[in-house]
């Protein structure tokens, strides 16, 4: 299932503002890749360009290539809707659909796309997805209750269940723990470790300990000043980034934070 992602010479714009410039990177399958860097350097922008969510914003566009399994996502014959079915996303703030029950939230990807599915298959999908998101035991008795009634951490795991229920190949996570308490954060980190056997995971995080804990490879984004485009300064195995980074800027950022 999991696939590798090759990004070459990627420039990302908001109308005329170049937000991210010249990204070249290879993201390994069945691993967790962390993206770190100061606020506003374009981590979210880059992440959203990996499943063509970027262009949802009016005026937003992309130059360059993102190749998954030999297929260029930005090829002229590629439908962004299909891309997003293969590459799921979890957002910073948990966003379950407020009108739907927990059950319906999990199968939202199937239902909203009107894929035909038998009731029993649907039940199985809900169970495996919720188990996959480590949420089954907490909610199995109240599947018909609204998803917005769960705690923040549970909601985020519900969103993860919803994302993995459509069986994507890649899972993008934009600061999935930044709105959560430490215990929920650990629950999600454990979950990521389990999920990486099946998915390619890319996670943006502000928390460097988290990057160090969960990821195999880490990319450091930085920008030279306000209004300047963000760049991928360094991309290396996580151990190397945190012990002996190639770039001075990376070392400054990491040691500055760890102070």
């Amino acid at each position, binding site marked *: 299932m999991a696939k590798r992602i090759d990004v070459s010479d990627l420039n990302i714009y908001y109308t005329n503002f170049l937000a991210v410039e010249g990204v070249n990177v290879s993201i390994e399958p069945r691993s967790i890749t962390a993206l770190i860097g100061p606020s506003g350097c374009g981590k979210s922008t880059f992440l959203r360009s990996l499943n063509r*969510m970027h262009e*949802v914003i*009016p005026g937003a566009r992309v130059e360059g290539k993102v190749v998954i399994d030999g297929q260029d996502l930005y090829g002229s014959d590629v439908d962004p*809707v299909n891309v997003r079915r293969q590459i799921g996303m979890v*957002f910073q703030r948990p*966003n379950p*659909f407020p009108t739907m029950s927990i059950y319906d939230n999990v199968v939202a990807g199937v239902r*909203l796309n009107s894929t035909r599915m038998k009731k029993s298959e649907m039940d199985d999908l809900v169970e495996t997805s919720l188990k996959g998101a480590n949420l089954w035991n907490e909610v199995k008795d109240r599947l018909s209750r609204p998803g917005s009634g769960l705690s923040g951490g549970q909601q985020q795991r519900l969103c993860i269940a919803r994302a993995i229920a459509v069986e994507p190949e890649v899972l993008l996570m934009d600061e999935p723990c930044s709105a959560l308490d430490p215990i929920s954060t650990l629950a999600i980190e454990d979950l990521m470790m389990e999920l990486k056997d099946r998915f390619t995971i890319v996670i943006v995080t502000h928390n460097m300990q988290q990057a160090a804990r969960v990821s195999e490879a880490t990319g450091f984004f930085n920008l030279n000043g306000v209004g300047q485009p963000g760049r991928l300064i360094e991309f290396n195995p996580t151990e190397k980034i945190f012990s002996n980074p190639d770039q001075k800027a990376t070392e400054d950022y990491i040691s500055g934070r760890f102070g």
Partner: protein
Amino acid sequence: MSTETPLAPIGSTSAASPGPVQTQRRLPRFAAAGLFLAGVAVGALLSALTGFSLALTVLYGVVLGTLAVYAVSRQVEGRRKATDRLVTSLVSTAFAIAMVPLLSLVYTVLDRGLARLDASFFTNSMFRVVGEGGGAYHAIVGTVLITALTTLIAVPIGLLTAIYLVEYGTGRLKKAITFFVDVMTGIPSIVAGLFAFALFTLLFGNDVRLGLMGSVALAVLMIPVVVRSCEEVLKLVPNELREAAYALGVPKWRTVVKVVLPTAIAGLGTGITLAVARVIGETAPLLITVGLITGTNFNPFEGRMATLPVFAYYQLTQPGTATQAFIDRAWTAALVLIMLVMGLNVVARLISRLFAPKTGR
């Protein structure tokens, strides 16, 4: 004397406030109300001296009462609290003034309309009635049919326009539509009536009268209201939900239909119901488009129809042999209309309560 403050300034160590939090001297609970009433009493006396009149009593009373509360509060509680009390009385007075016409209207309509609020008013038409008796059955049927038809025309157009504006529109076209919707909001209702009249005369020749004409006229008035209220409601749907759906690979139109609209359904229902309430009492456009008949017409695609507002208007302006009976019927028609509008408001509230996203644990 109003410049001296009996309270020590904040931060000074007076005996009354040893702690870091200064304790305030307060007027006793009912003192303010008592003072206000005393002011009102003095005001009543004043107006009695100059020949009693209710309006003057209220005016003097409110002014004096407010001043009394302000002055005493300033002496006892200090400037900030006194200003607070002054503004509170100003706001309450404004509220009371706004309520006067409403209460007076409801009272008058009830007072005069109850006389004929009987079963026969809802079961009889005015067919072959020239004196007492009769009812507004035909007008109620007409109002309900024409309003329903109006809703049928205006809601799809208005809702789809709102969806376009919020979900799809960009650039100039969006600006232009927004502008024209604003212009439409300001169209006088008689102009909408003349528009429908002219349109149907062009299409079907002179002397055409049908319920549909009235519906078209009312739809012209209702569409901008629907667009505006639906637009506001759709804008309230958090963008995160749209993005969540996109990220699952859901196409945009399906996101709108299955995520945005269900999330906004409560607000949409409320907005539409209130838009219906807005047009149900229109008189002028119906007067020139559907006219009036004394019998019941169930077919809005043929012939004149009676409607409550027009019915009330003619009962009042062209009474037949028994003047009082006609005037009574006019008031009762007004009362029924008000009840319809209130009923719609209740429905709107029920809708928003029933469909509101559930957040309970």
